[in-house]
């Protein structure tokens, strides 16, 4: 089936080898609020798709529920906009059986780290080749300002009006604690060059690449990263040949740490350190086994299946 689809793609394009531009991936007009970080992320993704020349019909964006999960609607690729917290199992199902498709998963912070936390942890462990973007604005936006697991302690919300009770969860250290996780990175929506470079590295990584994208909600958490936006010295870039290097921002972000993404202990250290916001690839290990590879089976034709089923029946024959 995938064969004929791929072959047809060429006929459809009438043999044209004209490259896809960013506009080739434009879907419906984005309906996010003005000033929402999602717009910039959408642009970075379109840039990535064009740079990688991904075939639109062989690209699938899967999302859960929340502002960020409207993402697939605004792209002209295949999309599956599912239910709250459950984008990862759907993505796993797609990639497990159609490894030739490029699968992206888009989730919000509540989506991924709260209602979908079990799937998040297990998806990292399965390490299916997915590019996973967690758009973290530290608040539930679509449902109008409720505390999420990543909301900083003390933040006033509609569900915790006297300030959120618990310390915020650290999605990076959680991800880095999962056995078989193979790619963990953090970037920020207000540093577009870094955002793009990180997404590209994530896409090129074979395995589940988990990217936490720090993001401002202009309505409910406009100030959340304000000081870091104003003061680049609060940000440290993790740089390495095997991670991301973005020369054009090095003049602004002067704190650069040479960090080998194979070094898990150092990755955990940076993930947990409070002094600065660290952007870059924390951990990357392309040698980790991928579930879709481990579980790959040889396809069987109907005739073969029936021949083997007859053998099965022989075992139960009377």
């Amino acid at each position, binding site marked *: 089936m995938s064969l004929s689809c791929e072959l047809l793609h060429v006929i*459809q394009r009438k043999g044209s080898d004209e490259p896809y531009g960013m506009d080739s991936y434009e879907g419906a007009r984005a309906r996010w609020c003005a000033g929402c970080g999602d717009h910039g992320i959408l642009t970075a993704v379109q840039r990535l798709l064009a740079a990688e020349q991904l075939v639109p019909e062989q690209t699938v964006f899967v999302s859960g529920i929340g502002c960020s999960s409207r993402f697939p609607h605004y792209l002209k690729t295949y*999309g599956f906009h599912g239910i709250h917290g459950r984008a990862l199992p759907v993505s796993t199902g797609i990639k497990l059986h159609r490894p030739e498709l490029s699968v992206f998963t888009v989730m919000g912070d509540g989506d991924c780290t709260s209602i979908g936390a079990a799937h998040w942890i297990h998806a990292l462990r399965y390490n299916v080749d997915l590019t996973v973007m967690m758009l973290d604005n530290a608040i539930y936006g679509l449902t109008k300002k409720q505390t999420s697991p990543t909301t900083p302690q003390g933040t006033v919300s509609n569900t915790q009006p006297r300030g959120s009770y618990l310390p915020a969860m650290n999605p990076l250290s959680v991800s880095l604690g999962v056995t078989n996780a193979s790619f963990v990175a953090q970037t920020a929506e207000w540093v577009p060059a870094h955002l793009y470079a990180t997404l590209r590295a994530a896409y090129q990584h074979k395995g589940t690449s988990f990217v936490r994208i720090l993001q401002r909600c202009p309505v409910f958490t406009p100030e959340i990263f304000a000081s870091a936006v104003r003061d680049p010295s609060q940000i440290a870039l993790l740089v390495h040949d095997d991670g991301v290097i973005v020369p054009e921002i090095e003049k602004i972000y002067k704190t650069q740490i040479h960090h080998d993404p194979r070094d898990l202990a150092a990755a955990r250290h940076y993930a947990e350190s409070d002094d600065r916001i660290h952007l870059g690839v924390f951990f990357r290990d392309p040698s980790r086994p991928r579930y879709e590879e481990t579980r790959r089976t040889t396809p069987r034709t109907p005739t073969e299946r029936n021949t083997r*089923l007859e053998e099965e029946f022989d075992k139960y024959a009377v």
Partner: protein
Amino acid sequence: MTISAGTTSAVAPQTGAPPAHLRVREHTIEIVSDSGEGAQKCGQIFAAVSAKMGNGIWTVEIIPAEVQPPPRVPEGASGNRIRVGAGPVTNWGDQTDLVVAFNEQALLARHRVGALAPDAILLIEEMWATSQDPAIVAAWEAAMEELSTREYRIIPVPMQEQCLTLVENPRKGKNMFALGMLAYIYDRDMERIRDQIATAFRKKSEAVYDSNVSLVNLGYQWAQEHIGFRIDVPPAPIDTPLVVMNGNEAIGMGAIAAGFELCAMYPITPATSVSHYLSEVFERFGGVVHQAEDEIAAAGVAIGASYAGKVALTITSGPGLALKTEFLGLAIMTETPLVVVDVQRGGPSTGLPTKVEQSDLLAALFGQPGDAPHVIVAPATIEECFHVMITARRIAETFRAVVMVLTDANLATGVAPYPRPTLDSQWQAAPIDLAPVGDSDLPYAWEEETGLSRRIVPGQPGGMFTLTGLSHDERSKVAYSSGIHQHSSAMRSRKLAVLQSVLTPPVVYGDEEGGDLLVVGWGSTKGAIEEAVDRVRADGLKVSSLHLRFLSPLEPGIKAILQRFTKVVAVEINYSDDPDAPYITEENRRRGQMAMLLRSSTLVDVDSWTRVPGEPLRPGSIVTAIRERVLSGGAA
């Protein structure tokens, strides 16, 4: 047990008298032991050999709740119950005629739940009577006292002593000794028994095989020398090739035959054994059993795979079905084909994990919040468990629908032979309608008349749309106007009416013209209900039955059928209030689930007779219920 009545009186005493040969139409046998003593293996081999010889059989497992319950307690009784018949056997029957028990506590357990016929023959390991432990001797004596209240014929057997002549650890050998005794009593073909032992222990060494065969021979000889009777259930000649398996294996094989490529699941009793079977063989067929992190994810992975154009299945039991609910709503909303098998067990909550019940019907039908039309089918036999998978897949894909298959623990663990299916490679064909989409094709191009539309799968050029669980229009654009939701709801619902339009009315078992009482059933109760109907019709009662396979949409013409009978009663294994119970009135009485469904869709005053004993219904108890309904004025 009318057929075997008189068995006991005909059994010759253990003297030198020539062995009595009893010829009966059927006999029900149990082998019970502590968990881990292999009684189930003995039962399985006995049943398989009986089926191969041409007897009808129906086997059920007797399962304790724990993996390793303490020894010699009634709750630990573990084993098999095999109903052997001269003709086809469609259910587990009423009571047991002959028991082999490895200890008296297991036997006591069966006695106490009323499993044993009043005149049953009990072959019991006698070592406990002379135990060094006075507590054990006391327990034995108390048990014998309790058992003596009935007319049972008790035959002590020195199993331990006999087995010790051959093996060091008789705990691992008694089951084969018991098999040998049964082989003598029921005159089973020893060649087939040896073959079956070879199959059953194919993963073990030759020494194991040899040792087991000698134990069987020993049991046979002992019975020959010490048991003065034989029981003959004449086998019927087999004219078609048969296979013998349980309903879960039949579902697994059906899934393979139907071309499924993924079974996503999370362990849950009694559904898991389907996955056990598939895990063993599925990869040879290019399939994958995915054990997900939870029930919810299992549904999600299956939906993802199906959305990606693969044929996917998820399998669960009641509590798991509850967890999958939101995802099922998503599959229905996005019109993603999906087959869900629910092997029902007792509920609510954790309920009776290993025991049969039919109480998921309404949850399956109405469990998803919002209007979520989908298809529900219920196979009634082990054979249908195989074939239903093919039909379920075809309907799911043709109608872009969720199809739930409701079976239960009775079918899941019951073992019976059925005609070997003739496979068709069309069943395995790739999903229909995967031709390329055109620029004008839409993800929900609902045909106004039928609600049907063609499915688009990632990879197809021109089909780049985003499916969504939000209400949407034909283009899958999120609906912001009221008319769209009305229309799309109608389109999803209409598919069920269209499916119903191609269904044919169900066939009445008994008298199509009508009569005094119609018994309506669904699922695994078919054999027991029809046997009960046969018995009361033989006594001249004008009773028929109707067994439904399609529960959503219901098969057409049911109302007309129901109206031809003076009374209608739905017989089910789920809870309903007894009309005579305190506080129960015609108005507040909670009826069985099928009764509720039929009443609402036909406006016929369908009565309800249901039981939740944690075991399959017995034909005898249905006979009693029928007589009450017909002879009494009949409770509403």
